[in-house]
């Protein structure tokens, strides 16, 4: 019976059923806002490179060819070659996967830590709130980048530790946003109603509050994704990045920086551009998502 129900209703404005309405809305926002549509396009390219990158690149990103070292961009090497004659185009493309992985993984991790802690703090208040708040305050009091450096330096510079460090550094941000959102909802009518319906506290938190906070959190995630990439790049720049010869944008920029003055601009420029485009894309997308999620809050 329920399956026929939506068909009965004529598609009056604003009354389209859930999914298609969302889709409509997304399409509207993308249509209205060219910039977001553009970011969306970029995201697709980035995801494509991350997934298929290793299979489509013309050269092995790790293979050196000292005879062809430091060649400027050409038909054979679109982005030129680096000191060891590795193809920069291939390296930039292949690095997409690692960099997006670092971004996604650290964001997922901080969402699990900060997001949940923040929601619990906002919802339960009291001691939970105080403890989570104190932790967030303490982390905030650190110069964040230096904290990330410290963590990576202490734990060792592996991808895993870079992810952990980035997640920890973002903890306060997530905890605060989640806390604020949960706090305004803790006494909302629908939460009271859920209590009346016999939902336990944990269930209210996870089933009723969390999904309502998700949109805001997704925006937050998109924005911090960019920050995660920048953070990893910064760590690489001071020598705490992933291990060579792994292709990673930050490392490539840092290595290329030495060559900039001597005229081999392409070594730093292309990874730098890739880095910038990715961060740019995530940032714009975050803005766009905010539009979709909550047009009032657009910034």
């Amino acid at each position, binding site marked *: 019976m329920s399956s026929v129900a939506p068909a009965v209703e004529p598609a009056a404005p604003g009354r389209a059923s859930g999914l298609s309405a969302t889709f409509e809305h997304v399409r509207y926002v993308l249509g209205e806002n060219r910039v977001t549509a553009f970011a969306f396009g970029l995201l697709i390219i980035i995801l494509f490179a991350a997934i298929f990158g290793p299979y489509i690149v013309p050269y092995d990103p*790790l*293979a*050196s060819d*000292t005879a062809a*070292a430091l060649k400027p961009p050409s038909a054979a090497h679109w982005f030129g070659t680096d*000191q*060891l*004659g590795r193809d920069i185009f291939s390296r930039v493309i292949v690095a997409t996967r690692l960099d997006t992985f670092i971004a996604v993984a650290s964001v997922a991790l901080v969402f699990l830590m900060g997001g949940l802690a923040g929601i619990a703090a906002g919802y339960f208040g009291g001691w939970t709130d105080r403890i989570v708040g104190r932790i967030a305050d303490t982390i905030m009091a650190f110069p964040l980048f230096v904290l990330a450096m410290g963590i990576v*330096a202490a734990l060792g*510079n592996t991808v895993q530790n870079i992810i952990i460090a980035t997640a920890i550094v973002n903890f306060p941000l997530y905890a605060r946003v989640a806390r604020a959102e949960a706090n305004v909802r803790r006494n909302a009518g629908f939460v009271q109603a859920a209590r009346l319906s016999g939902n336990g506290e944990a269930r209210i938190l996870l089933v009723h509050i969390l999904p309502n906070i998700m949109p805001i959190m997704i925006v937050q995630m998109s924005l911090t994704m960019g920050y995660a990439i920048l953070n990893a790049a910064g760590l690489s720049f001071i*020598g705490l990045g992933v*291990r*060579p*010869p792994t292709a990673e944008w930050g490392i490539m920029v840092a*290595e290329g*920086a*030495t*060559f*900039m*003055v*001597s005229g081999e601009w392409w070594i730093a420029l292309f990874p730098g551009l890739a880095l910038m485009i990715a961060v740019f894309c995530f940032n714009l997308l975050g803005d766009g998502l905010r539009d979709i999620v909550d047009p009032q809050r657009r910034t």
Partner: protein
Amino acid sequence: IWSAAKADARSETLLIVSESGPNNLDIHGVGTNVPGYEVSWNCYDRLISHEMKSGPGGVPYYDRDKFKPELAEDMNVGDMSVTFKLKKNAKFHDGAPVTAKDVKWSLDRAVSVGGFPTFQMGAGSLTKTEQFVVVDDNTVRIDFAKKDRLTIPDLAVIVPCVVNSELVKKNATEKDPWGLEYTKQQTAGSGAYKVVKWTAGTEVVMERNDAWVGGPLPKVKRVVWRMVPQAGNRRALLERGDADISYDLPNKDFVELKDNVKLNIVSVPYSNGVQYIGMNVKIAPFDNVKVREAVACAIPYQKIMDAVLFGLAKPMFGAAADKATEVAWPQPTKYFTDIARAKALLAEAGYPNGFETTLSFDLGFAGVNEPLCVLVQESLAQIGIKTTINKIPGANWRTELNKKVLPLYTNVFSGWLDYPEYFFIWCYDGKNSIFNTMSYQSKAMDEFIAGAVDAAAVGNTAKYDADVKGFVDLAFKDIPRIPLYQPYVNVAMQKNVSGYQYWFHRRLDYRALVKA
């Protein structure tokens, strides 16, 4: 827009840029770093120094065997002692005369403070304060503990510098009897320059000591030494003519700057220095000599020379198969890149499918080490050895080496005293010094080394030559470390700067520099 006075100041000031600066102005201090040596060398005097000769490419190069007086007026070598008469008009920066008491106090200090200075003194068999005797106000005698041909040269290195003992004692405390805290922050010597301002990590400003008697009055009045961490910026500064000298630039920059008509580039090989790949012979599978040989055959030597060093180094590989071993160090091995042979050797050693290990390097020298390791990694992968590259921050590098747990790594060693046996004592002797990072132990090796040392002391040339050839051959046969190349010291200067001299410590000697 320069005012006239500023332009004047500019012509009399030398602006040096480098990556890092001193952490201590006194070489006797605890943990003084390499840039600190430069301050010590220019601001303190020693009793004697070396003469110059013409080195590779016509660059003035210190003469290992010839000494010239610095604070001493003359040197009188006896059978078991050496006597120095001090220059009468020598004065410290504060005007106090340099006396025999100061010299003894300084040498006592060097052998007493522990750590590196004491150790370096020991390399010349200078270990006890009793060896330093004040004969009169102007005369010092140094007694030999035993016959050692390194004793006199060791008096010309940086460590046995002469310190203003009265001034430092005034500032010493009970806890710090040698006044190390005081000399850490200011120079108290009689050298050609004195530090007038030091901001750690930022700049050192030195001014000429016009009353210097250690040699001809230097031409440069003022030296400003700035730390510029970014190599690109250092190059930019040079190319734009803002900096006068930079000496730690990537090799590539030096190669390219050679073509720059406005600049003057000097490249000189490190004396007694080698960059090598080390393998810990106590850790499987590197305990197997065949594995070590296989690795030696798999190193992409020429690629490293080209892509990493841009030709600015002396190859230490690929000597002709029939070439006789020389009585010299360093000298090339007979290894060259031969993947097929490497594979065969590895199979013979029982690792036909290779193995996994880590390849470590010092992040402080990442510019060279990183591409080098990436090339080595790639090449080793071809014979089945999978390596993970492990970057170790400079400060921890020594700690890690000390633990002797790194299976495979690259490093440079170079000895101040340019004698083969000096190098081998450090790096190959069974006494297992910290520079014997491979934990290599061999009775035969120890005998060759001891033999050479003794032969040198008594001047037995034939025995000496045989022993040197013996230990070099053995080192190449057992191959615990694979020499790659002899690095170059590269210095880039503006065309109007001249007078560069190469010293064993490889730091700048301002005293000879001239800015036109």
